Each structure stands twice: as C-alpha cells, then as structure tokens.
C-alpha cells in the first residue's frame, strides 16, 4: 500500500537531535543509559496528538523551539534566582536548592540515617545507587522521561537507611531563571529502604513569563514496609512548557502518598508511573490543579498492579478550570494476570468555571485478573447550583460561596497530606488563586450604580 513516510522533523526536534552528540561528551556518567534513552526519543520525535499517550497534549506544537540546555549558573545568577520567596521555605529539615537543574545549595542538617549526594557528583565520581536510576521498566515507555534521562544534568541521590524514620520533610527547591528561556533536566532518585518513613516535598518555581522548558524526574524506590509521602508544587514561570515525571516502585506492604498541586505554567504535564512490585502495597495518588487564562495542564497516571495480593490504589484528581484553560486527566490502572485481590479506585472530577473552559478525561482500566475490584469515575460540569443557592441563601455572596466550594473541592485532594503546615501553605496558595480570580471578575464586572 502506501510507502512509509519519513517524519518531517520540527525545529525543536532537529535542535535536540543536533545537540545530543555534542552534549553527550560533557554530560557526566551513565553513557549507555543516556544513549538508549536518546535513541528512543530520536526514533519517535516529540509526541503529537497522534501518539495515544499524548493525545490531549501536543508537545510538538507546544515546544516549537528547543530552548538551550541551561549551563551551570554563576554566583550572581544563583543569588538572583534564589532571591524570591519560596512558599515551602523553612519546611524541610534539610533543603536542597537547584537553579536551572544544577544543585547550588544545601541548607539544614542531614538527619541521621539519610545520605544525600548531588547527582552530578555521583555521576562523575560513581555511586553505589547509580545503577538504580532508570531501573523501573515502564509498561509503555515514556518520551518525557527519555528526554530527561538523555539530558539529565544534576539532581540528587537520596538514601534513607533501613528502619529510619526521618523527622520532618526533605525539601527540594527547583528554580528556573534566566534572561532568556532555558531547558533544564534535573533528576532525583530516592531509595527508602525497608521499614523507613520519609516525606519528600518538591517545589518547582519559575520567575517571569519566559517560556522555560523544565523537565524533571523523581524516582522513588520503596523497600518493604516503607512509608513514603511526597508533595509536589508546580509554580512554573507563566510561559513555561514544563514536564515532570514521578516513578515509584513499591515493595511489599509499602505505603505511598503523592499529591501534586499544579498552579502555574503555560503547558504543564505531570506524570506518575506507579508499580506495585510487592504484594499488599498501598498507594494514594492525588492531584489538585487550578487553571486560568489559556493554561493547559495534563495529569497522566499509570498504576500497575504486578504482584499478588495486588494491593490497594486510590487516585483522586481534582481540576478547576477557568477562562479558556484546558485540563487533562489520563489515568490507567493495569492489573496483571496474577495480581489477584487488587482493589483500585480512580476518580477524576473537574469543575469548569467558564463557558470556554475545556476538560478531557480518559480514565482507563486494563484488567487481566478475575478476582479484583476496580472502579473509575469521571465527572465534569459546572459548580453545583443547588449548593451555591444553599450558601447564598445563608447570606454568603456569590463570589464567596464559589470560592468556598472551589477550595473545599480541591482541598479534598490536598487534605491527604499528613503534614499540617504544608497542607496549610497549599490551602493558602489556593486562596491566593481564588483572590486573583475574584480580582479578575471584579475588573470585568460592570459597575452597578
């Protein structure tokens, strides 16, 4: 029939492909891993709508140009980058700061039983855990992660020793900054050994409106009976095309809670790939996304139950979409043939606040075992009129009633975080978002005389 068509490379694809051979020599460590990841990317190119996993986020269109990979910032640049206030400042017992994907500072004392090595150092000088980077085999592979693997510059390897309970969160602050748009590729590996308890919080901050292209990845490997909680806050620059990936490999009877709060960035995609490698593990994966203007945010999730008993997974994604913004939820629960007794429940709820907002839901199930309970629900619609009426009939103004409903709606997802100060900070950020919305509405509203 028709001949195989050679894809026409976009400017960004060509730039990335041209860039790799030169960068390869200067990027530290793991040449084979980088090479393979890059080959996977080069073969496929940037994903478009025709790639099923990226159906609703056309990365090729969003990333017309490939911003140059950021070089290590100098002292003056670091000072400028870290000057701004970080919402999660002071929350970590130890805080690692990264500017443009390069580790620049560590503050606070390292808790007992925890070791942290900057990734660049580990890559250059060797580290016993290096072989665990990229070790989790994803069911479908992933192009964003491949790009991160090929270009990773720096990051951290965090090791939590067996049975250790870390007293307070380990915080990671990523700032993207510069006079022109840059691409970054930070990578963090956290190995929580058996029986350990640890909380990891990340904030991704970007200044100004520049179209930065951060692409970060966090890999969590949880040993048997480990308890890991993870919070990610997305506050990218207004023009950013930001990609982030979480992979988690769960041992027997582990517990993972991960909450992603996405607020800023022009086009953002957060993906979570969670594998239940050991029996009877438990995971709660949540998302809270608030969008306005022409923002586009994508939450993609693949949960693979691969052991018996299949364990319990719960997913709750809440999305608020205003103006002409668009939200995406793609979730997939895979139950492998032997993962009997799996109990998976996935819910995506979206509230559209404006006529032109759009939501795309794709909650998938792929089940090969017959003794499981899996369910998914997806809803989207406007704020409930009846609830609004109820509140207004009690003397609350419409704007206030809406704000209350929105805060409690996304709060349901945030409240799974077992750390009150951080939960409060996130709630405050939601309230800031609501205030900005109220200000927008006030500016638009005709003056009543």
């Amino acid at each position, binding site marked *: 029939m028709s001949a195989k068509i050679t894809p026409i490379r976009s400017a960004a694809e060509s730039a990335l492909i041209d860039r790799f051979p030169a960068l390869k020599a200067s990027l530290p460590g793991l040449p084979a891993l980088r090479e393979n990841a890059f080959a996977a990317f080069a073969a496929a190119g940037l994903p478009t709508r025709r790639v099923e996993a990226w159906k609703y986020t056309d990365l090729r269109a969003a990333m017309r140009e490939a911003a140059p990979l950021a070089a290590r910032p100098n002292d003056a640049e670091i000072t400028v980058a870290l000057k701004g206030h970080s919402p999660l400042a002071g929350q970590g017992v130890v805080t690692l700061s990264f500017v443009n994907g390069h580790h620049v500072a560590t503050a606070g004392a390292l808790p007992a039983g925890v070791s942290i090595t900057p990734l660049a150092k580990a890559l250059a000088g060797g580290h016993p855990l290096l072989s665990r980077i990229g070790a989790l085999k994803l069911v479908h592979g992933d192009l964003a992660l491949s790009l991160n693997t090929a270009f990773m510059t720096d990051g951290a390897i965090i090791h939590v020793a067996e049975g250790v309970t870390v007293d307070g969160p380990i915080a990671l602050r990523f700032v993207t900054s510069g006079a022109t748009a840059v691409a970054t590729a930070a990578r963090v590996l956290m190995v929580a050994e058996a029986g350990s308890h640890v909380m990891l919080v990340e904030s991704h901050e970007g200044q100004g409106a520049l179209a930065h292209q951060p692409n970060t990845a966090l890999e969590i490997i949880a040993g048997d009976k480990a308890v890991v909680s993870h919070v990610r806050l997305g506050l990218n620059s207004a023009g950013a095309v930001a990609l982030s990936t979480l992979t988690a490999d769960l041992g027997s009877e582990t517990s993972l809670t991960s909450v992603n709060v996405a607020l800023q960035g022009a086009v953002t995609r957060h993906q979570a790939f969670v594998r239940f490698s050991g029996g009877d593990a438990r995971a709660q994966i949540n998302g809270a996304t608030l969008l306005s203007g022409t923002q586009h945010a994508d939450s993609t999730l693949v949960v693979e139950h691969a052991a018996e008993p299949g364990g319990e997974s719960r997913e709750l994604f809440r999305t608020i979409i205003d103006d002409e913004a668009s939200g995406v939820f793609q979730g997939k629960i895979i139950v492998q043939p032997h993962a009997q007794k799996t109990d998976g429940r996935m819910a995506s709820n979206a509230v*559209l606040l404006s006529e032109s907002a759009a939501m795309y839901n794709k909650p998938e199930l792929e089940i090969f075992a017959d003794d499981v309970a899996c*369910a998914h629900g997806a809803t989207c619609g406007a704020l409930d009129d009846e609830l609004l009426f109820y509140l207004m009939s009690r003397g609350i103004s419409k704007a206030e009633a809406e704000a209350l409903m929105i805060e409690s709606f996304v709060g349901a997802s945030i409240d799974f975080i077992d750390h009150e100060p951080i939960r409060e900070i996130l709630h405050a950020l939601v309230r800031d978002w609501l205030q900005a919305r109220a200000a927008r509405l006030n500016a638009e509203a005709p003056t009543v005389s």
Partner: protein
Amino acid sequence: MPAVQETIDQVKAIDVSEYKYGFITDVEMEKPAKGLTEDTVRYISARKNEPAWMLEWRLDAFRRWKTMTEPTWARVHYPEIDFQDIYYYAAPKMNGAPKSLDEVDPAILDAYKKLGIPLREQEILAGVEPQNRVAVDAVFDSVSVVTTFRAELAKAGVIFCSISDALQEHPELVRKYIGTVVPVTDNYYATLNSAVFTDGSFVYIPKGVRCPMELSTYFRINEKNTGQFERTLIIAEEGSYVSYLEGCTAPQRDENQLHAAVVELITLDDAEIKYSTVQNWYPGDANGKGGIYNFVTKRGDCRGKNSKISWTQVETGSAITWKYPSCILRGDGSRGEFYSIAVSNGMQQVDSGTKMIHLGKNTTSRIISKGISAGRSQNTYRGLVSAHRKATNARNFTNCDSLLIGNQCGAHTVPYIESKTSTATFEHEATTSKISEDQLFYCMQRGLSAEDATALIVNGFVKDVLQQLPMEFAVEAQKLISISLEGSVG
C-alpha cells in the same frame, strides 16, 4: 470478587464450540475473479445496473482507499489481511431477479428456515398476531434475496427494500443521503465499503409515519473466501418512528472472512430510530482458527431537533469485533442511547463502544455497556463522549461494567470524555452501586440485597429495550441479560 457459578454456566452455554449456525448451504454461486481493482468496482456497479454517479462515487472511494493505511489503534491483533485474496462479490446464480419466493433457490430458503428467519408472509401471518409482524430483508452473501411485506409497507408510504433496489427505484433519495453521515473517507474500512458495497437495506419513513411493523435485515455469509460489504441507509423524516433489527450469522470455516459494513441513520425533527443488532457471526474455534473479522462503521445523525437514535447491540460472535455505533447529536434537544452487551469467549477479540458527539443545545445521551470476557478472549470498551462549545446543557451518563471469567482473559475500558462547555454535565460511572440511590433504596427496602437490587435495576433497564426485539432475535439476548452483575469491575 470472581464471577458466580450461574454466570459461568450461562457464558459457557454460548461458548465458541457451541456455535449453532455453522452449517454451509450448497448453492451455485456467481463471482468475479478474486482481488480488488477498479475493474472489480466496475463489475459490482454493472451487475447492479447502477446509475453513472454511483459508479463514480465508488471509484472515487476506491482511489482514496488505495492511499489509506489500516488503522492499528484498536486492541485487536490479527495477521495482515490480503485484500487481493478475497472475492468482493458473490451471488447465488439465478436468471434475473426473483419475482417471487418461488423463484428463489430452495437451498437458500432452506438455509433461512434453519436459521429461523420467516421469509414467507403467509407463514408469518399464520402463527403470530399482526402487531408482532416483522418485515425481513434477507441478504445472502452479496445480494438481497427477498424483502417481505414491501407492498404492505408501501401503503403506509414506507420504503423498505435492498439498497440495490433503492438505487433503481429511488436514486434521488439515495443520492441525497448516502455518505452524509459516514463520509467516504471516514476510515479505512468505510472507504473500502464505499467502493465495493454490495447489498444492505434501505429504509425511508415519510413525515409523521409510525412504521406499522418492525423492519429487519438478516445477513448471512455463506460462500468461502468472500467478504461481505453491506451498506444500510435509514432515513426517518420529521415526526416518524421506526424500529429496525439486524441479525447475522456465518458458516463454520477455517479461514477468516471479512465483514466491513457501513450503516447510516438519519433522523429529522422529532423522529426516532431504534436500531438493534444481534451479532452472531462465526467466532472461530476454541483455538482461534477461522471466524469473521467484523469491522463495522455505524453512525446515526440526529439532524433534526428533538430527534432520537438508540443503538442496542448484543455481541457474541466474530473472531474480531471493531465496532462503534455512534450518535451525532446535532439537532437541539436530540437524544442518543447506546445499550450494549458484548460477550467474548475462546480467542475472540472485541473492541467496541460508542461515540456520543454533542453539538446541539440540550442534547442528552446515555451509555450502558456490559462486557463479559471468558476463555482467552480480550474485551475492550472504547467510547467517546464529547460536548462542543455550543452544546450548552449537554448531559451524558455512562456506565460500563466488565466481568472476567478466568484469569486468561482481559477486560479493558478506554473512555474518552471531552467537555468544552461548562454547562455540560458528564458522568462516567463504573461502580454498580451508584446507579440510582433512590431506586436502590426502594428495592432494598423491599428485602432485596444491594447486589440483587443493582442487577434488577440495570437489567431491567436494558431489558426494556431488548424486550422489544421479536422473539426470533431475542432468545440469545434474553439469556445474556439474566447474567448477574456479580463480581463486575468498572
């Protein structure tokens, strides 16, 4: 939880090894050489004595088809199809068109008798109450053998005939509507069908007419190495109503046969079409040898305001099913419904679902899908619900349940829910307990367990539609409906 024994038994009763319609009818057939070229398309068109515009339309489709590639996104796997190794036309030999049933080859009549399809009007009249009569269009391989009750339907103004006859008798109607719901280049198989379609039914219900009886088409693939390319076109004018049923079977053969149909439905203001299918093509044997590849494009266009299209399907046959009966809800206030039960067994692969495309204001749709997979089969529900920016107050409710029997099969759900207006309310629900709390409470108050109540509500709901199928078609369906929902997963 795993499926209950009763369910397992019921599914076993319709296992691939139990296929009842696998006999072969020995009739002398007329067919052109194997393969597909422009000449094949010309041959088919000439055989049917079609108007010149129809041939042009077919040739255009054929040229476009040559530039297309087979879709691979569905969760089905099969060896590459050699489109040159198929007969595109096969008709029982006869001298001219049969004027009455007496001129039809008795072997063919016998085949339909074995299948339990009544082709003689008097026979139907003899045993059944008049209100339960069904007019049948019987399609044998590539041609329509007979269409019953044509005269009586004509009295009501209803046109019910094969699409070949319609091209002779009402070419202006066919020309006006064909390809307006499923465009020629809609997809690979629809384009192929547009080039080589042979027979199928044509229904036209005039303004304000409620069709006096059920209409049905019975498709039978008999000849080996043939493909069946049916084309059905149903038009319901303003304020009319029709219920249409479709049944299909094929003999047990070792090779895979292709069935690529296109069905187009059009409802104008306040009209309603109810389209029901009992698909029972040969599913292949327990090892996956043989069976029909069922690659079908079915789509309804609610063109008028307050019009309604409902699809009901019971899928038990075919080696591979690739089928998404859809509704385009264009008219304001129009409504689309999709009720499906798909049972896969043996090595069957089902990838089926629906699309509800909300374009008009106040449009509503409902999707109820039950998939049951056993043996080593794979059963996928794939559905799209979308609301256009102007589809204010669109509403959709989707419920899809799947049930697995054994751990060598798979059940998959791939729903796409796209909302571009805040006034649309879409609910995709996969937990059986949340159908309607009120109804559930009512049933439980009367002593039913939560599970019994749920089964009762969902089954009762689907039954409503299925019970309207005539008995000939409904036996299989009724049996399946009684399968409990116990152990189902979203």
